[in-house]
């Protein structure tokens, strides 16, 4: 199982600023190992973020996204204390869901 994501969700004005750090190898499938064999591709394909059951972000990713990716996005209409849930699914079927409560901007 992969490591948990680090999610920060901050309300400033009427928009929620969400920053997500994911732990993933993000292998492109182009690299070879020490013995010359191709390292099979392994990367996050789908990312979704929901707020109160409603999808606020849905993305399709490919092998060009960096290792341990960092994602930042904004949506409007969030409330302090409510939860933002982020899920990723990779091309091997691996999956991870984490959540964070929205905090007020400092």
């Amino acid at each position, binding site marked *: 199982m992969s490591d948990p994501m*680090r999610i920060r969700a901050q309300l400033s004005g009427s928009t929620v600023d969400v*920053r997500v750090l994911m732990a993933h190898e993000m292998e492109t499938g182009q690299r070879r190992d020490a013995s010359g064999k191709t390292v099979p591709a392994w990367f996050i394909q789908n990312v979704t973020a929901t707020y109160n059951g409603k999808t606020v972000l849905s993305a399709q990713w490919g092998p060009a996204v960096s290792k341990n990716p960092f994602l930042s996005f904004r949506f409007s209409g969030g409330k302090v204390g409510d939860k933002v849930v982020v899920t990723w699914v990779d091309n091997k079927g691996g999956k991870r869901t984490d959540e964070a409560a929205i905090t007020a901007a400092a």
Partner: protein
Amino acid sequence: MRSERILTCITATTAALVLLGMSALAQAQSSSGAPAKPAPKAAPAKAAPVKAEATRSSNATVREIEKYREALADGNPADLWEARGEDLWKQKRGPKMASLEQCDLGLGPGKVKGAYAQLPRYFEDTDKVEDLESRLVTCMVMLQGFTYDQAKRAPFGSPDNKPAMEALVAYVTANSRGVKMNVGMKHPKEKEAYEIGKRLFFHRGGPHDFSCATCHAQDDIRIRLQDLPNLTKKEPAQRAYTAWPAYRVSQGELRSFQWRLFDCFRQQRFPELEFTSQGSVALTMFLAHNANGGTYNAPSIKR
């Protein structure tokens, strides 16, 4: 584009002239109290623009590199190592099924906050000077019952190797963020380690006849985008030491200070620096003590 360059050149020249004028004035006033003579102002001004232009363009490069680093800093993946390290610190592991929560990093058992800013230091229980990594090895052996070999095995991360060591290092160092470096040198063994470290730093050897000082005893030099801090001076030494460990974007791994030294030795074509060896701790002692007074601010992120 072209006119812009001419403009910057002119600005630089003017700035240089103003500076020269001011310093000449200040000098004249402070030395004799007599009014500044106009003659010495004109003479050095001819040579000045070239120097000023060179400094200016290198400053612009440095500024752009700074911007790039700032852009990277938000969302530093070192956070992932910190989180994993905190779990590992509290997790019951090893033959004795114990956590590291009773590990004494120098401030008493279980005290993590600010501990890294005072390492390396002398520990009575082992009768040795230890840096963070060697102290963690000691704790893994004494508290958790691992063998030394197990605790030290493959300490640097790669896609197939996710060692506990680097995560623990990230967790402990993060707990010294904002703390002033304060490495003591009271115990004779601490002094000895410092002196050995100093000698290692200046020791020239290997097929390239290199020493650490070959790259790290001059001001304002770089390898591509990497600053080569002058570690013999207080301010750059503080800035360099307090920025390790770091998440290296190009490697996708968090790198500890032991790794930094290990890789410097490799780049010098020295024999492999053994993980947590006496030499590595001594060199860390030298560099950490030179950084005293600097505010610790890591794990950081580097290209």
